[in-house]
């Protein structure tokens, strides 16, 4: 039995998991329309590689990864591209984003699928293939997996199968039914990262999944670790601490302490991508909450939520839908938003299941939140600063170590929307940071401009000085016609100029005090004007000489 290293805090919200595990995973029906957002992962959104009107095959890439932190997006079904346009996406802002709208033709014709022998190819190549297969973390953070896999000589590979949020059972059902395939996916990860040990953390409220995984892990050397049910043990850093005792340093990534953590569903998609050549075009979604037939479904990415929920028969008093769990999920404002790679659960809400919180009271500093915080923060202080918009202080108290798990909110006797305050403060600080960067750039550009103007001024001055010398050399510029006289005059002028230069130059050109520079500029100005009327040129030049010598 492995010794666990409990993290601080945590809560036990009612689980509500049993209702959606009574039946196995079913396939959701093919919807009439698929809306596939191009931004389904952290990093740069994918670049569309199909045009409106194109016919695409199931699994065909429709969005190519753009840059390093990005992943591909694929057609979930064969059909026609109806539009590439702004469509509502699951995002707290409710703002739309670029999506590819597909009309499935119902034929479900696949692209040519090719399994990869992952032991035979270079890991870097394998990672690129995973990027092109659109493999991202399916636990909710949707970070492109190929980047996380880029760490070799790992001490521990942690597979996150804790699934600590209430209601959600998609990972549980996945492990119960497809444990062998999950384990094959884990084997690929272990191979790529050369991990010394593999720990699979599962909360003890999923005995069926634990025994299925234990059976599948026979002989593989992977260890299934049963962890106590405690929200948020499914948070990557908390799970790593729980299983290995190592704390991932703030602001750093797990490989720094020799650990990497993947969601169990990600392992499954890696297996599908590598051993079957299937990109990520579907995922298992728990439909639960206020529904007659809560159940897990294998759902095509892009299926509109409003259409999907019908299979689970939401009750009449359903007031809305929640994407994700009740602790960290996103209430959907528009039922038209599609299922994306991050969608693990759709909960139908009702006033009875999720009553609105009572009126918020002032914070009484009871520190229940601090006792519940899995990041060892002092939520009451963070709230105090965020409320007063004292963002600098909030940052000093390590606001950015908050994982927004909602534990503080859950236990607050004053019913303060704490997490909202942290989200607000974080986004304000990010905005300030953006502004600061912008102003930094503006300052640089402004300073460069000042430098440029100064340089141009000096160049101009230098040019004028040269011109002055030239003008001195030809006192009567363009008007002379008596060649001999002119030549003599020129010679005389050259001599004069040379003499003058010898006397004057060191003082005037080498280091110019600003006043002198201004004076010269002024004179230059006058002279350019003067030269236009050739007759006055000589007189002007004379005065110039007089001044120049002074």
């Amino acid at each position, binding site marked *: 039995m492995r010794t666990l290293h409990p993290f601080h805090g945590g*809560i036990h919200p009612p689980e509500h998991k049993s209702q959606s595990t009574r039946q196995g995973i079913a396939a959701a029906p093919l919807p009439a329309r698929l809306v596939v957002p191009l931004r389904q992962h952290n990093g740069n959104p994918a670049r569309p590689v199909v045009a409106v009107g194109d016919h695409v095959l199931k699994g065909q890439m429709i969005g190519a990864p753009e840059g390093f932190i990005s992943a591909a997006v694929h057609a979930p079904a064969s059909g026609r591209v109806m539009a590439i346009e702004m469509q509502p996406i699951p995002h707290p802002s409710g703002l739309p984003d670029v999506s590819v709208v597909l009309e499935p033709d119902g034929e479900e014709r696949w692209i040519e699928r090719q399994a990869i022998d992952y032991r035979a190819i270079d890991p870097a190549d394998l990672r690129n293939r995973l990027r092109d297969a659109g493999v991202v973390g399916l636990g909710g953070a949707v970070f492109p997996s190929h980047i996380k896999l880029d760490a070799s000589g790992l001490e521990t590979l942690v597979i996150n199968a804790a699934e600590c949020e209430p209601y959600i059972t998609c990972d549980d059902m996945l492990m119960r039914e497809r444990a062998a395939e999950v384990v094959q996916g884990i084997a690929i990860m272990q191979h790529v990262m050369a991990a010394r040990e593999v720990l699979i953390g599962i909360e003890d409220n999923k005995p069926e999944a634990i025994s299925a995984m234990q059976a599948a892990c026979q002989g593989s050397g992977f260890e299934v670790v049963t962890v106590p049910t405690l929200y948020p043990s499914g948070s990557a850093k908390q799970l790593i601490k729980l299983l290995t005792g190592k704390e991932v340093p703030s602001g750093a990534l797990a490989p720094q302490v020799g650990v990497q953590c993947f969601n169990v569903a990600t392992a499954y998609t890696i297996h599908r991508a590598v051993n079957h050549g299937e990109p990520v075009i579907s995922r298992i979604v728990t439909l639960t909450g206020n529904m007659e037939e809560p159940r897990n479904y294998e759902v095509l990415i892009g299926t509109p939520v409003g259409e999907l929920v019908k299979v689970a028969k939401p009750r009449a008093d359903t007031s809305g839908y929640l994407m994700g769990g009740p602790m960290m999920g996103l209430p959907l404002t528009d039922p038209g938003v599609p299922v994306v790679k991050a969608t693990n659960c759709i909960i139908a809400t009702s006033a009875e299941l999720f009553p609105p919180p009572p009126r918020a009271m002032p914070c009484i500093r009871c520190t*229940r939140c601090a006792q519940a915080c899995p990041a060892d923060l002092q939520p009451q202080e963070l709230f105090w600063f965020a409320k007063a918009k004292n963002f600098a202080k909030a940052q000093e108290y390590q606001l950015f170590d908050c994982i927004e798990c909602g534990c503080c909110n859950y236990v607050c006797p004053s019913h303060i929307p704490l997490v909202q305050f942290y989200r607000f403060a974080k986004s304000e600080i990010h905005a300030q940071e953006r502004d600061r960067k912008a102003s930094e750039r503006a300052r640089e550009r402004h300073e460069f401009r000042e430098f440029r103007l100064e340089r141009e001024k000096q160049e101009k001055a230098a040019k004028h000085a040269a011109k002055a010398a030239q003008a001195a050399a030809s006192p009567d510029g363009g008007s002379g016609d008596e060649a001999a006289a002119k030549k003599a005059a020129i010679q005389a002028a050259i001599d004069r100029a040379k003499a003058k230069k010898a006397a004057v130059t060191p003082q005037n050109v080498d280091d110019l005090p600003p006043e002198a520079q201004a004076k010269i500029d002024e004179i230059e100005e006058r002279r350019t004007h003067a030269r236009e009327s050739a007759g006055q040129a000589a007189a002007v030049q004379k005065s110039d000489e007089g001044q120049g010598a002074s």
Partner: protein
Amino acid sequence: MNSPLVAEKTAVNFIMLKVLAALLPAIAAYVYFFGPAILVSIALASVTALASEAAVLHLRHYPLRVYLTDGSALVTAWLLALSIPPLAPWWLIVVGTLFAILVAKHLYGGLGNNLFNPAMVGFAALMISFPSHMTHWTAPDVLAHSHWSFAQQMDFMFGGISPADSKLDAVTMATPLDTLKTQLHLERTVAEIQSSPIFSTLSGKGTEIIALLYLLGGLFLWQQRIISWHIPASFLAAMFGLAGLFYLYDPVHYASPLFHLFAGGTMLGAFFIATDYVTSPTTPLGKLIFGAGIGVCAYVIRVLGGYPDGIAFAVLFLNSAVPLIDAYTQPRVFGHAGKWFNGRKE
């Protein structure tokens, strides 16, 4: 609506009601030993507190029902009433409660915003302004020279009228702490003084039972996770330790540490006053410092200082240090190396 959408069944008034409930056994003992006048004091303080709170809430356009039922004003009122002498005239209670609720609580913005414990601010203000009224403690019934009926007690509280056949002096006496202090000045030893009938095994007759019941109530709050162990434990430990040192040094002139734990307001202070959420530190280390600070200051004031008991002043003194303590005792945050102080790494 935003996540999280679920919450524990809890509320501010649940907490406050549990605090009030934990006081009940001690109040029952109080009635047994000192007569039912204390109930009138508590009721008067409660009414004053609620009425003044309602007035402020109304002025500030705050919802009356929400804040009057939060129970915090009641806790303040009860603690104040339990801290002042049981036969205190009605205006003393009213003035103290008004000062506590209006100045200490609502000038700062009401619930959750005050820096000082309102009940103790009220108590200290009364102690400074009306010292003679604040030191007239009724003797426990078992010791009193004469007994006033409930009606007579009410006459005194509301009219200042003593019964014809007995003066106030007949029903009051110095508290054990007070007796100890004044008698020690008369060059008597602790042992001699404690042989007087007002003393019992632990501290004073009657008062020690009440102190024990405060302790019991406090343990109930701890068991209910309303309060953490840090403040009471460090408070009592510091007082016990300091009193023990003095006792070991000179047992003739310093009372035993056990006496100090059960005398005066120690138990009430340790479990009900010092543990007030709003005015105590939030970090575990801060709580320990805070509790120990109160223990030390209270002992120093009650034994070496000018006032008979030091709990209120010690609590207020340490209240003022709470923001500073909080700022410098922030615990290590997940994923950070070492402790950090006020935003800077150590």
